[in-house]
């Protein structure tokens, strides 16, 4: 990396943005005899593909693996175009430092918003295809025949007229010296042999024997361990601490302040550091938010439900006028709480700082954002920093836009120059310093004419904006477009109904509890608001919930397609088994269309048994249907956990729930039988699959609960209503 330009953080960010629109598809190969080599000396055919002499294919990945199978799917796409032997494929992450040094040859590293595959499939496929063309050309050159007479398959190149063959490994060195092709034609997905197939993941073997290294498992020579406590009250600071009280405790090396708000103990082991931290007297300046509570937040949001001023996210016709002149009105207010990501692996990062270098080892959903955090916290230029990405023990959004844990690790390591320090948050720290699923309320009004036709819908969302907290530049004249996810008139989270008159608007209220992207995030509550209220409207109109929806969906064939698929699978309209009741929901998010039908029974009015959930997904293209099935099943778990248990309450300016005893998560006993229907219908752009299904879990169950009991539930989690799993 000795050719890296000197860069400070500002120029990194600027230049990253500047090249972001013009990715080079991993083909920045220096011309002439100089070959770019992987660490083991094997030649890079291009930035995406390294081929070792033994024919092992190393596929480089910019996105992160955090459980969704993204890396396997991306490797399938590269391998498909490369025409390599799938059994010889392995993957590795280039570091953000390497990527920046090569003009971001690997493109965006951000792995969130279900973007891992859908936003990079084209250029990784082109990377694979370009490498194949260069390998074939190298073989043709050696044989002195036209490349057009040669084909590649299963890592073997064949000259058809003569029958001569060679392998990728034998020609990789020569291929790496060739100029990349100017024109690349990708396969028609109908010809796919590796992509599109339900292949097994590439990373399973090390996940069943304890070998997989997550950030928490990183070990470096001479490494110390740090435990941290940030002021539990949002906006508070450290006032004073009595380090003498713990200085003599076993293993304690140093007590340090981290920024204005946090204190860390550095010890030989983490357990020693944590034990000392627990014993350390810290006095906090709790700051201006100490009187904030869930009740004060709810009161503030409530005022937004009828506020004059609101940002408009979607409208047609004149919904207010139609409501004013309605023969019948239906009105309801819903709400959704703060929720924590609660990834199984608590946040952590290991940092090594010296006067002229800073390296970090961590799980991150966005290597470049972690890198930017290292630059900012270390004060060192880009060519003196790097981030080594580790497997993530879950991300769900927490390790994407926020690298507070990385910044802290660097700030701690700066106080121990030359010694690597691993910072690990306790579960308690992880719970009280989340970047929470935002809190909102929603008032919905539907209007009917005298013939019982729906004439208007007004949905007023009141509450928190994520983008205002984390990405101000994405606001549109103050409006947060993400708050309308699933209500939008167009795009990747488009509403699936046409109403004669529609108004969806947002009164923004931003309490001092930091919000963040969360698995699914805005579609999770918006789908409850819209899909449960659609059920209310159907009921008010005396119509079947499916038929009522269908009439409004004639211009939304893909939304309707998934809804019809789940309805057909369960036999909607035919009687359910004795005591079983059905509810349905459909929504669009992250470019995919999803729908669900839940079949439940209810004992004693408050014990729910979910017999089955059928979920349908139309992601456009299905790169690995088996992994999509797993994402659908897993998304139902995440969505049902949120529905039954998920709530972070605020008291005295701090989050009250500190561990899984008060912030529960679904266990196997309550896992419903999930039937997944993967039904790609083509088109562009592709949809993602890591998140969308979460949003239909709750409304499908809540609508089934109404069918079973006649009771509407408009706030979650269910534990607050004394409703539990049977």
């Amino acid at each position, binding site marked *: 990396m000795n050719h890296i330009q000197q860069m400070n953080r500002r120029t990194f960010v600027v230049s990253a943005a500047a090249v972001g629109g013009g990715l080079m598809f991993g083909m920045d190969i220096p011309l002439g005899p100089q070959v770019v080599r992987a660490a083991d000396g094997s030649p890079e055919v291009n930035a995406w593909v390294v081929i070792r002499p033994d024919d092992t294919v190393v596929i480089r990945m910019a996105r992160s693996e955090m459980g*969704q*199978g993204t890396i396997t799917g991306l490797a399938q796409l590269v391998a498909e175009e490369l025409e390599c032997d799938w059994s010889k494929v392995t993957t590795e992450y280039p570091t953000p430092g390497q990527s920046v040094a090569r003009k971001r040859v690997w493109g965006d590293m951000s792995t969130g918003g279900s973007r891992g595959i859908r936003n990079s499939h084209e250029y990784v496929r082109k990377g694979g295809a370009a490498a194949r063309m260069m390998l074939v050309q190298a073989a043709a050159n050696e044989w002195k025949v036209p490349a057009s007479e040669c084909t590649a398959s299963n890592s073997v190149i064949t000259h058809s007229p003569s029958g001569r063959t060679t392998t990728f490994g034998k020609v990789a060195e020569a291929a790496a010296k060739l100029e990349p092709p100017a024109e690349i034609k990708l396969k028609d997905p109908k010809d796919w042999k590796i992509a599109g197939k339900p292949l097994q993941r590439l990373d399973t073997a090390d996940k069943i024997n*304890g070998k997989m290294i997550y950030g928490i498992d990183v070990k470096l020579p001479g490494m110390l*361990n740090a435990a941290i406590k940030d002021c539990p009250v949002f906006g508070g600071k450290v006032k004073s601490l009595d380090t003498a009280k713990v200085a003599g405790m076993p293993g304690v090396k140093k007590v340090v302040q981290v920024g204005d708000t946090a204190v860390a103990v550095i010890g030989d082991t983490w357990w020693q550091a944590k034990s000392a931290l627990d014993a350390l007297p810290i006095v906090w300046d709790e700051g201006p938010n100490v009187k904030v509570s869930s009740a004060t937040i709810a009161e503030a949001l409530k005022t937004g439900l009828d506020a004059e001023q609101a940002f408009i996210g979607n409208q047609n016709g004149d919904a207010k006028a139609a409501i004013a002149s309605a023969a019948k009105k239906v009105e309801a207010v819903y709400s959704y709480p703060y929720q924590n990501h609660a*990834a199984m692996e608590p946040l952590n990062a290991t940092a090594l700082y010296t006067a002229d270098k800073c390296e970090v080892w961590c799980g991150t959903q966005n290597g470049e954002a972690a890198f930017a955090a290292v630059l900012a916290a270390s004060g060192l230029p880009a060519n003196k920093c790097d981030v080594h990405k580790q497997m993530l023990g879950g991300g769900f959004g927490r390790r994407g836009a926020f690298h507070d844990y990385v910044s802290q690790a660097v700030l701690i390591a700066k106080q121990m120059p030359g010694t690597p320090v691993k910072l690990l948050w306790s579960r308690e720290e992880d719970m009280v310093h989340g970047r929470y699923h935002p809190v909102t309320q929603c008032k919905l009004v539907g209007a009917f004419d005298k013939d019982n036709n729906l004439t208007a819908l007004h949905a007023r969302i009141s509450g928190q904006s994520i983008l205002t907290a984390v990405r101000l530049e994405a606001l549109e004249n103050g409006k947060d477009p993400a708050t309308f996810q699933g209500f939008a008139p167009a795009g990747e989270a488009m509403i699936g109904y046409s109403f004669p008159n529609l108004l969806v608007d947002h009164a923004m209220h931003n309490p001092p509890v930091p919000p963040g992207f969360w698995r699914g995030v805005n579609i999770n509550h918006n789908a409850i608001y819209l899909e449960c209220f659609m059920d209310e409207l159907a009921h008010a109109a005396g119509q079947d919930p499916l038929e009522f929806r269908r009439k409004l969906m004639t211009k939304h064939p893909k939304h309707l397609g998934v809804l019809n698929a789940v309805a057909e699978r369960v036999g909607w309209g035919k009687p359910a088994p004795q005591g079983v009741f059905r509810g349905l929901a459909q929504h669009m998010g992250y470019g995919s269309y999803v729908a669900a039908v839940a079949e439940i029974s209810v004992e004693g009015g408050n014990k729910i048994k979910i017999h089955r959930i059928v979920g349908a997904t139309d992601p456009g293209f299905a790169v690995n249907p088996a992994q999509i099935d797993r994402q659908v099943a897993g998304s139902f778990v995440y969505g049902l956990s949120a529905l039954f248990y998920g709530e972070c309450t605020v008291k005295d300016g701090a989050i009250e729930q500190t561990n899984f005893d008060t912030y529960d998560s679904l266990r*196997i*006993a309550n*896992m419903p039988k999930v039937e997944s229907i993967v039904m790609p219908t083509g088109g562009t752009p592709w949809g993602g699959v890591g998140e969308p299904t979460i949003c239909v879990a709750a409304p499908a169950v809540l609508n089934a609960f109404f069918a079973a009991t006649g009771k509407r539930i408009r706030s979650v989690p269910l534990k607050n209503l004394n409703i539990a799993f049977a």
Partner: protein
Amino acid sequence: MARLTINGKAQDIDVDPNTPLLWALREQVGLTGTKYGCGIAQCGACTVHIDGVAVRSCSLPVSDAVGKQITTIEGLAQNGILHRVQKAWLEGDVPQCGYCQSGMIMAVAALLKEKPKPTDADINDAITNICRCGTFQQVRAAIHAAAANA
């Protein structure tokens, strides 16, 4: 100092006997396959076997493990042959992020020792580990597959 028998090997470990076994395994012994998830025996990511029984090692002091057989995920395979639960996990492609899976596999291996052909109800009672990725459907199928493979 504590003398522990881990995966069949007795070793002296320089650790305060009040330290949770989880941290002794991870930090003193260097066996990081056993994971920290909650520290209060709620999530099961730290599950190991003590004399063949599934135990949440985050809440067990080292002193309570002295003189007992401790098995971690690293010691589950025997002579390079995967345990049938691991095999079922591999064939069923069960893990997603994988972080909770060491504990899940250890809990399941202990269950199958006690109940070689567990019913769904047995599984529901015995396996209470948290998996935030939501692998439970694959976990249940793999448990039955492992049981059928006995």
